[in-house]
């Protein structure tokens, strides 16, 4: 679980940051003198809707009154007036807001602009003051789809459902990406290595033929002997790569042996190959001086180890 969370962390962080930015956008910091709201904005024909006017002021205003207009096609429901006072005490002091709301109903479907709203009130000095507030838009549907008229409150923007959907999709995408990354990182079970055949010949045959074709060097010629064993070692490494699909050129014999032990592939043939490579290392690094018989014996051993043939030492030096 923890591993999967690690993989989806970037997606989660992105989603959380995006949601935070959006939420803070709704925090309206600052005072307004008046605000009009409609609830709901998308209404089915025959369902009433409420227009609310909220008036805020730094001074103690009295008897605020709102003139609710009735454009064509929309009319006020009788006896639907509601008025109240909200008192908020904060670090900046006490804020008082007056809330006045009226209920409307529409006669026909369509889009209606209701307003502007004229607000009159007595200020702290007893004088009449007036402000005008912007109109609001309401949409009336004949038979509104359920999602258009449900819980979308007056303060919620129209794109709210789309945002929720996008957030959910982002979370889902993050989870899928994490699962996929986790799946890719799983080490697959060791399968039998793909054997690399060249034409119709097996890697053993290729290696044996290559060793057979090497010219037997003069045992007195140290350089030639070294090159010979170098070549044998190269051929055997290439054989191991082809047969067991394991890179060998950048590994020492000990490292190759360790890897074969780890893979549990130390069969008799591999052990025989390692013995031959070990002899090559002694010639290459430890000044081992093989006799002419030893040098010829390399081909005999190659035949035995690689292709399971018993070949006689025919003698002869190049």
């Amino acid at each position, binding site marked *: 679980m923890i591993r999967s969370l690690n993989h989806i962390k970037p997606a989660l962080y992105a989603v959380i940051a995006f949601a935070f930015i959006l939420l803070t956008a709704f925090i309206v910091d600052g005072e307004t003198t008046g605000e009009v709201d409609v609830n709901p904005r998308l209404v089915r024909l025959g369902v009433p809707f409420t227009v609310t006017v909220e008036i805020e002021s730094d001074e103690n205003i009295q008897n605020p009154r709102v003139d609710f207009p009735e454009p064509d096609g929309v009319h006020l429901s009788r006896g639907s007036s509601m008025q109240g006072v909200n008192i908020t005490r904060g670090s900046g002091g006490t804020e008082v807001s007056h809330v006045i709301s009226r209920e409307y109903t529409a006669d026909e479907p369509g889009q209606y602009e209701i307003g502007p709203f004229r607000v009159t009130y007595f200020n702290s000095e007893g004088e009449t003051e007036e402000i005008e507030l912007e109109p609001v838009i309401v949409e009336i549907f004949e038979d509104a789809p359920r999602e258009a008229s449900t819980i979308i409150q007056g303060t919620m923007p129209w794109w709210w459902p789309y945002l929720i959907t996008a957030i959910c999709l982002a979370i889902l995408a993050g989870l899928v990406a994490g699962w996929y990354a986790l799946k890719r990182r799983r080490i697959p079970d060791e399968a039998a290595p793909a054997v690399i055949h060249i034409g119709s010949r097996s890697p053993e045959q290729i290696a044996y033929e290559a060793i057979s074709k090497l010219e037997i060097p003069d045992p007195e010629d140290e350089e030639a002997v070294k090159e010979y064993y170098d070549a044998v070692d190269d051929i055997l490494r290439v054989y191991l790569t082809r047969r067991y699909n394991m890179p060998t050129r950048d590994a020492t014999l*000990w490292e190759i042996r360790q890897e074969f032990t780890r893979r549990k592939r130390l069969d008799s043939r591999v052990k025989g190959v390692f013995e031959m490579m070990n002899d090559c290392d*002694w010639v290459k690094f430890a000044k081992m001086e093989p006799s002419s018989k030893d040098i010829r014996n390399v081909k005999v051993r190659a035949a035995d180890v690689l292709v399971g043939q018993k070949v006689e030492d025919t003698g002869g030096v190049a």
Partner: protein
Amino acid sequence: MTNTPQMPPPSSAVSEEIEALGRECESYQPVIQSVFDEVKRILVGQDDMLLKLIIGLLCRGHILLEGVPGLAKTLTIKSLAVAIGAQFSRVQFTPDLLPADIVGTRIYNPQTTDFSTRLGPVFANLVLADEINRAPAKVQSALLEAMQEKQVTIGDETFKLPDPFLVMATQNPIETEGTYPLPEAQLDRFMMKVKVTYPWRNEENLIIDRITSGKSIELEPAITTEKVLEMQRVVDRIYVDENIKKYVLDIVFATRQPKEFGLDIDYLIEYGASPRASIYIIMTSKAFAFLNGRGFVTPDDVKAMAMDVLRHRILLTYEAEAEEVTSEDVVQKIMSTIYVP
């Protein structure tokens, strides 16, 4: 002692010289083991650090250690000094240190109206230069010059440093504010840079038991410094084949011209390793072969030593730093690409 690749004896006769050398190396195995055993009476874990110190001793090279405080660096070198019967001194490098505090100075005696020379802490077989990056460049240079020349001149007198002589300098990888990092040219003088890591859980458990028990362990010398000098001479004779030299040169040249070896990392390397790298890889490989009772060097010895010799010798580009590629990554890439002979 080491997780070493042992080469089974071949089916043919080995050269007499190599065979004799091999027997000689094997004869020193119990000697080395006795040093290890003595130090391990007090030291828990840190086998790699101890091994590299011994290699440094055998190769007459100096070691730069990097590790956070509390990883038994002082304890290791102090214990090793006791185990080989050598003198030990510790110098805590601070920003107000003076060169005379390292090498020594002449002191005026008003009664005799004469100067006498007081030798500094560098005159010991094993010297611990703690937090070398905290001292200013002048002080660092005084030590490094002594390391290079194996002698110190005070006034008009020249004094030879003792033999064997090993400086183990430490750098604290944290708290680097107000430090004077060693420049690359000076870093190159250290044969190896060894990174010291935290102990394993079971080791730390044992450390707690040992330290909090209140019992003190007194170490005894297992060998003498003459034996160390003897082993140094044997290490000098360890056989290095041309194939091995070619392999080492390929590795070092790959740090300078990576493209020629099919490596697409030249944009990561500002400067490759100097010829000192080739020299030290060979020397440390010989010491490693000696410790494994072999009279010749194999590619496994080279692979075992190359990282510690190269990690502080490769200067990386800004692109490497931006991609968070370390010198170890570069060395690892090279080692996994260069063909083994």
